[in-house]
């Protein structure tokens, strides 16, 4: 068969790319299971034959892991739920209701997607200070709940739902509230899941805003904690820092496994429609 050789090359290329993609993560995991004293030694460990969990214990001693997880979890969860609700509400109005100025309002919301956070960060910082919220978790939460991208996604989602369901309900005398809450909101749950998973992924990993807003260590989120863990140790032990990195990855991996489909749909939806 003449096709065999090119397809071999194809698999070889894909395999190399897969090893390069997963390799660093695998190395992180196996090195975190090495005794701290051996963390620098080469060749790198490929298989955790004799796992040593002392680095994980050390992480808990050096940084306040439960507090960091609690802070990150709280911030991420409130933002995710807040975005799901507000995006669904605004998206529904933009998709399903007619009123004067609707297109202009929607255009304003859309255009804010293109403004980089760094351009507005200084005035937002001052607003937060003015509201007396600096160095509180609310400083991260409140500005992140209104979501232009989420609103856009939910509008697209509602546009894809059948129109006649709502019309039939209205003919039967259902109020706009009932039409929304008993017909469209339940149907929109998969779309809201997309918004929620995207928000989770982004804000669990967020670094720039927490770095600016959080001053006291008791308000640090996990990415900030990891960077300080690395700073505290200098080059003392890689294993301990990498154990921290692995711990921080666990929720991301869980979301990846369960929310993969939603994440993928959310990330590509902006591009295809």
């Amino acid at each position, binding site marked *: 068969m003449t096709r065999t050789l090119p397809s071999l090359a194809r698999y070889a290329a894909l395999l190399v790319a897969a090893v390069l993609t997963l390799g660093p993560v695998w190395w992180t995991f196996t090195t975190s299971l090495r005794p701290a004293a051996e963390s620098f030694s080469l060749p790198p460990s490929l298989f955790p034959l004799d796992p040593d969990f002392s680095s994980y214990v050390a992480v808990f001693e050096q940084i306040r892991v439960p507090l960091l997880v609690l802070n990150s979890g709280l911030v991420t969860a409130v933002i995710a739920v807040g975005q799901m609700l507000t995006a669904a509400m605004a998206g529904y109005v933009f998709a399903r209701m007619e009123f004067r100025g609707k297109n202009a309002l929607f255009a304003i919301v859309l255009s804010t997607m*293109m403004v980089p956070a760094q351009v507005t960060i200084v*005035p937002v910082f001052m607003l937060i200070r003015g509201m007396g919220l600096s160095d509180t978790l609310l400083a991260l939460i409140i500005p992140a709940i209104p979501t232009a991208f989420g609103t856009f996604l939910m509008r697209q989602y509602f546009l894809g739902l059948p129109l006649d369901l709502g019309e039939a309900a209205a003919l039967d005398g259902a109020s706009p509230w009932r039409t929304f809450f008993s017909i469209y909101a339940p149907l929109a749950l998969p779309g809201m899941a997309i918004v929620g998973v995207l928000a989770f992924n982004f804000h669990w990993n967020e670094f720039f805003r927490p770095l600016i807003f959080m001053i006291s260590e008791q308000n640090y989120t996990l990415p900030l904690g990891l960077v300080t863990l690395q700073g505290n140790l200098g080059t003392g032990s890689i294993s301990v820092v990498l154990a921290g990195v692995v711990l921080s990855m666990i929720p991301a991996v869980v979301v990846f496994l369960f929310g993969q489909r939603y994440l993928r749909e959310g990330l590509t939806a902006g591009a295809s429609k």
Partner: protein
Amino acid sequence: MTTDSRSGAVLRWLFLAPTMLGVGVFVLVPIVGSLALAFFRWDIITSPQFVGLRNFTELATDSTVAVSFLNTAVFVVVAVAAQLAIAMLLAVLVQSRMPAWLRVFFRSTFFFPLVLSAASVSILMKYLFNESYGVINWALSLVGIPAVPWLTSPQWAMVVVIAVYVWQNFGFSFLLFVGGLAAVPQEIYEAGAIDGATGWRRFQHLTLPLVSPTVLVASVMAIISALQVFDQPYVLTRGGPGDSTRTVVMVIYESAFRQLEFGRASAIGLVLMVLIMLVTAAQFRLARRFVFYQ
């Protein structure tokens, strides 16, 4: 007015309120605020001082700012080109004939780095690229290449920052390309095969034009996000050695929150925003010539 349409109006404004209020307070007002602040010198502590255009004119003569724009330009060009090329190559390979489970495996693998935080990724990469005990130099030593000072030499530091960024982000373009390729009708390839289009020619004359709308979207998104790079250079190099990996956003951060020069930070932010708008507009103009809609 019937009670129904009145309750409809209440629902409408109540449902819109959180989003419109949020967008207004946390995006629109801050843009105006940034514009105003850019004309002042202000350190938050003492009262602001009007300086006219000085924040802008000083940017032109500030060598750190100039270097940061140059670094960002180099970063964007190289990182985006690499990201799109790698993503396209892998998307074409994954979409060719193979068992379904294998395709799912590769797709998930290339998508995986996207879910990790840039801070974690940068920390682990910092160890992999360490000059004396890093795995990368160890692997190179096996084939006789002497240790490379990856993060401590100005030339290599930018290479590492780009490599780490591309490693984490190529999956995004990859996902878009996989979607674009899946939408290409198979008959076109069959017709092309009759005309003898195979391999590179097939890719150049059939595949690429057919997915060109996706390429446009992927490149617009990749450029916008690359122009805002911060996490990777901050964690990997803190902008150094020297200023070799200092990006525009790092200078905004340092001006505002390290040196307390809020006016200057606002001015740089505005220049960055205008740049993003110009680049995006230029891309859509170029697209008129190169993007082919079926």
